[in-house]
């Protein structure tokens, strides 16, 4: 076993390095990803090792995402870095109307293996244009996969699978996780897309989340345990395709469901999970089904204000407790 302490940031770096070394059809495009090493330092010095394949772009998110699509249609696997997830709005057309449709609309003639890596998330006081969590906007897009790793080994293992997937993948990183450090086993197998992970088994309530939410949930879980509430925590890891079976099985056991996400509750990812669970196992439900997440307002820059708008541990605990009963 080759282990080493590793951050989430470096896990992604290592996955990228491995990918680039394994397959010369893989390239990376994005802003400030050469000397600067990426706004969050993820690509770091990769450009030294792969000078031709790390392509620093102008500030033209729509254009270079479209260029990535064209390169992917002609045989490359392209990893695009969008500096903050908020800027993905500039590339929406390229993702929704082009990348996601290519395989289907062309009758299977071409594939479009583009992975869009992008950091989401708030709690940093960056203000609304640099703090959003926007995966919900893409849940309804057919042909797109959505991946949001919460752990270091998932960041590594899911990125490998995402890049070798033959479909466009929205790969959501989280700013607050980049510095998270754990003991990491380099022989870790790639993590297949579409399989949730049971973070901790529990009896009373099924708490489902993704990305940074898993960590919020994990802390809440510890505290709840000391109050005698035994939470089962599930990390979806891949939002699309969604591993609803794992969630359903858990809810059949606990009879309760809470969805936790950093993004907007209204119109969020939770709505899909709740609806599918309800469709599949309503008779097993034994308590209120709740969602916790962002209030339906933009994210204020003020740190104190931001804390009120984004989900926190207290609100997670409250929801879990409410889910135990009917009122």
């Amino acid at each position, binding site marked *: 076993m080759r282990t080493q302490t590793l951050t989430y940031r470096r896990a992604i770096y290592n996955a990228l390095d491995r990918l680039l070394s*394994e*397959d010369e*059809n893989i*390239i990376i495009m994005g802003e400030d990803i050469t000397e600067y090493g990426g706004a969050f330092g993820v690509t770091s010095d990769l450009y030294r090792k792969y000078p*031709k*394949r790390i*392509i620093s*772009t*102008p500030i*033209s998110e*729509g*254009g*270079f*995402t*479209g*260029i*990535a*699509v*064209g*390169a*992917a*249609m*002609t*045989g*490359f*696997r392209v990893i695009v870095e969008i500096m903050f997830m908020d800027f993905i709005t500039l590339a929406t*057309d*390229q993702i929704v*109307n*082009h990348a996601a*449709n290519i*395989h*289907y*609309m*062309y*009758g*299977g*003639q*071409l*594939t479009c*293996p583009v992975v869009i890596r992008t950091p989401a998330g708030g709690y940093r006081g960056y203000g609304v244009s640099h703090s959003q969590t926007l995966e919900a906007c893409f849940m309804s897009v*057919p*042909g797109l*996969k959505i991946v949001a790793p919460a752990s270091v080994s998932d960041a590594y293992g899911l990125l*490998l*699978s995402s890049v*070798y*997937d*033959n*479909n466009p993948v929205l790969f959501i990183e989280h700013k607050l996780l980049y510095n998270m450090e754990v003991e990491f086993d380099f022989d870790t*197998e*790639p993590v*297949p897309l579409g399989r949730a992970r049971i973070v901790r088994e529990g009896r009373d309530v099924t708490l489902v989340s993704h990305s940074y939410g898993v960590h919020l949930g994990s802390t809440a879980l510890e505290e709840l345990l000391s109050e005698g509430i035994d939470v089962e925590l599930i990390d979806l890891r891949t939002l699309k395709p969604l591993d609803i079976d794992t969630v359903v099985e858990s809810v059949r056991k606990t009879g309760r469901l809470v969805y936790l996400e950093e993004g907007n509750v209204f119109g969020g990812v939770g709505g899909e999970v709740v609806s599918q669970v309800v469709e599949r196992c309503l008779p097993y439900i034994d308590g209120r089904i709740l969602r916790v997440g962002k209030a339906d307002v933009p994210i204020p820059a003020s740190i104190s204000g931001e804390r009120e708008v984004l989900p926190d541990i207290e609100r997670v605990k409250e929801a879990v407790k409410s889910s135990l009963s009917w009122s």
Partner: protein
Amino acid sequence: MKREELIQLYSKALLIRLFEEKVDWLFSRGRLWGTTHLCIGQEAVAVGVISCIRRADYVVSTHRGHGHLIAKGADIKLLFAELLGRREGYCMGKGGTQHLCVKDVNFLGTNGITGGGIPIATGAALSIKLRDEDRIAVCFFGDGASNQGAFHESLNMASVWGLPILYVCENNMYGMSTRFSMVSKYEDVAKRACAYGIESTIVDGMDIEKVYSTTEKILSKVRNGSPFLLEAKTYRFCGHSKSDPRLYRTRDEEDEWKRKDPIAQIEKKLLEILPEKELHAIRESLRNTIEESYRYAEEECKELDKDEALRGAYAYTNAYVSQGDIQCPR
């Protein structure tokens, strides 16, 4: 230009014209659904440019792309099948007129999003450059599309990176009903190349020979990694799409352009070197191709069925595979 070449160009252009006329007829009889954008009047651009390039070269097109498809060598039978929504169509009937790709001939798609093809073509050119391949990308777009941000961003990157791409603007003076001079200070799209340090030139898009010879001259530059913007002045004889009463232009203007009909022009030249009988034979043979192809699609092909319609949103992926087995299309 040599006689054989001229006949070639003529045949291609006429095939496009006949195809479009058939499509038009099918629409008017309610045998085709959805929408369509005919390129009647603009055949010289598609044929002139594409006849200069190779099968290996990529072409990216627009909503008005039947001509580009045919010039690039797509099979008329499979085109009709696609337009009719048949499983045997190039895209199984899933794409239709505005989302029509023919991988065989390196045709990377017509495009329903105005300007949407410009970054895609630029990306194909990036591929070529990264692999140091001996081919180029050709990107067709309209005057209207040059107002999209995608045009600006793409030409800038192509210029900075030195990509082997030929941008071909088919300036037919209108984007739908909007005269280009109403939405641009200059009437020439070619002028916009100045912002990117890209060379550009304007050609009479109604004259196949001129388009051909101009393109030929440009191509060596493009093959050496200098992007180029070629503007062809042309005109669409029909409305923008179905049911366009064309109130935004005068019949005089239309007549003036119709006098420059690219097919009539080349026919006239051919008549000087070819007996009318031979021309007639060509015409008849093309007409047959069209009719026979349509009949095939209509009678021998099956509608896209439920199973297939619900399949294919995702490409198959063999989990995580190491380098050797990558399911990577080339």
